């Protein structure tokens, strides 16, 4: 972040800016296209040109029986997302607080969490499903499926909490204790409120990572699919823009969640740096 003394931009700025702009286009362009194509006319195909504009394919998703249990899958993915979000935020908050001190087993637990990110998802899915098999338990989306999702969200949550706690000053907790607060009061009145934006970030990761997760879910959900699994099935056997329509719907949910998280964080930051004027 160099505040260089010359105030005029050199040629390199414009070249790099153009490159960056192209990259952003590269990132968002394709998605934008399928959003547009999801409003394809009833006679239209998977590519351009658009033959009319309609919400036909959205209705098709809803009403047709060709696409499997999309409604149920959607519901299950949402529920799993919320469960994963809550569990990840709570577990990673306390774990990161614990990691501030040295304790026996800290290294192995940390590395095992990282290993979960490195191994292919499907391997973990195989392991969990076979483990259940061996133990004689039935695979179900809300147990083995949830477990598989947690194996993905917990390491991310932990890493983010580490980054958040890096900026956290332990003297706030000391000051609270000095004022007579018990450990639970310190947590409730000082630690969690101050860390709240970070917790929102962890919650965001927890929800979206679970909501979009596919490789680990494949083998562990049991009989009822989650939405990403249904969509991945559709890529091979659906040849209509209904595929794009479901893509638009699920992306809309993702964007909504992202927007809520960003808004929440922004509001809190604003509150902490600006006055509530005139409330004397």
């Amino acid at each position, binding site marked *: 972040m*160099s505040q260089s003394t010359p105030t005029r931009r050199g040629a*390199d700025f414009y070249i*790099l800016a153009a*490159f*960056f702009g192209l990259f952003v286009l590269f*990132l*968002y*362009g*394709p*998605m934008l*296209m*399928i959003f547009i194509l999801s409003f394809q006319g009833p006679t239209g*195909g*998977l*590519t*351009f040109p658009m033959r009319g504009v309609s919400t036909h394919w959205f209705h098709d998703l809803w009403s047709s029986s060709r696409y499997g249990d999309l409604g149920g899958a959607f519901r299950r993915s949402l529920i799993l997302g919320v469960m994963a979000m809550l569990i990840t935020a709570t577990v990673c908050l*306390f*774990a990161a*607080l*614990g*990691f*501030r*001190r040295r*304790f026996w087993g800290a290294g192995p*637990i940390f590395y*095992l*969490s990282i*290993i979960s990110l*490195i*191994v*292919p*998802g499907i*391997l*973990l899915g*195989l*392991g969990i499903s*076979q*483990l259940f098999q061996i133990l004689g338990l039935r695979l179900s989306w809300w147990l083995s499926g949830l*477990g598989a999702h*947690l*194996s993905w969200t*917990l390491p991310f949550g*932990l890493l983010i909490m*580490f980054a958040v706690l*890096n900026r956290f000053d332990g003297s706030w907790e*000391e000051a609270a204790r000095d004022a007579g607060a018990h*450990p639970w009061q310190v947590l409730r009145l000082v630690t969690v409120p101050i860390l709240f934006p970070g917790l929102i970030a962890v919650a965001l990761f927890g929800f979206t990572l679970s909501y*979009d997760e*596919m*490789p680990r879910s494949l*083998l562990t959900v049991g009989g009822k699919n989650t939405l*990403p699994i249904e969509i*991945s099935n559709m*890529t*091979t056997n659906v040849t209509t823009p209904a*595929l794009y329509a479901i*893509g638009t719907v699920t992306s809309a949910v*993702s*964007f909504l*969640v992202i927007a809520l998280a960003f808004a929440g964080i922004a509001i809190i930051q604003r509150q902490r740096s600006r006055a509530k004027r005139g409330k004397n």
Partner: protein
Amino acid sequence: MSARSPGSGSQLTPYLQVAPLALLILALVGIPIGTVFMLSFWESDGISVYPAFTWQNYHDVLTASVTLSLFANTLKYAAIVLVATVLIGFTCSYFLVFHVRNLKWQIGLFLLCTIPFWTSNVIRMVSWIPFLGREGLFNQMLMQAGLISQPLDILLYSDFAVVLTYIHLFTLFMIVPIFNSMAKINPNLIEAARDAGANPFQILTGIIIPLSKTGIALGSIFVVTLVMGDFFVVRVMSGGQSASVVSAMKNEIDQLFYPQASAMAVLLVLVVVLMVSAILRVVDIRAELAR
């Protein structure tokens, strides 16, 4: 007199705090990986799986000629994607950190890059199909501009499409750690170098690249493990023509050959761990994560 600090709780506190995570990670990661490892020594006849201890699966995997070509193919993808993501990720991070002066813009543009990460990878992959196909937008544009007379076939359902999709999905994993490393570079270092007469290229190679090493290493670990572990992109975007180690694994799983798939999985993990260790020689990750 005990040396306990009454302020920060008993010695037991960190154990209680980490216990939920420890139990979950053990149960959901540690034991399943162990299960797969154990499975790799079992037997299967395509119908059910029998507990046993045999090296047969490893023998089969290691002697099959297709194994080598699978690894070669997957490693080929990993190498190309790695180079591309490093170049693109480095350039974008460099732009954001050193050329965007307003902090709010910096963070805003950075977040702009990260938002797609929070949407579905499957959808992002699928979104390339209308663009790259024979009747896709790109071909149409090229034909209208008169650059080509026949639509290009190699854009979709090819190695090109696979690599392109990997780059699209995974460049972010390179941008985030490199951005992080670059942002920590003390601007005074660059001022001092300029004072001493260094030109921008020298500053880049002498200061910025060395100090971004950690970020590049971290990003490389992410990209390499993600490409090596993929089975979906390679299958769809190559139109079924190409395969990766994990996609072959998935085939075996579909046919209930769990032990064989597990042996291949163990082999893959070994190769990936070797690659990660090689990258880790360059940098101390623990210290970096703690900063």
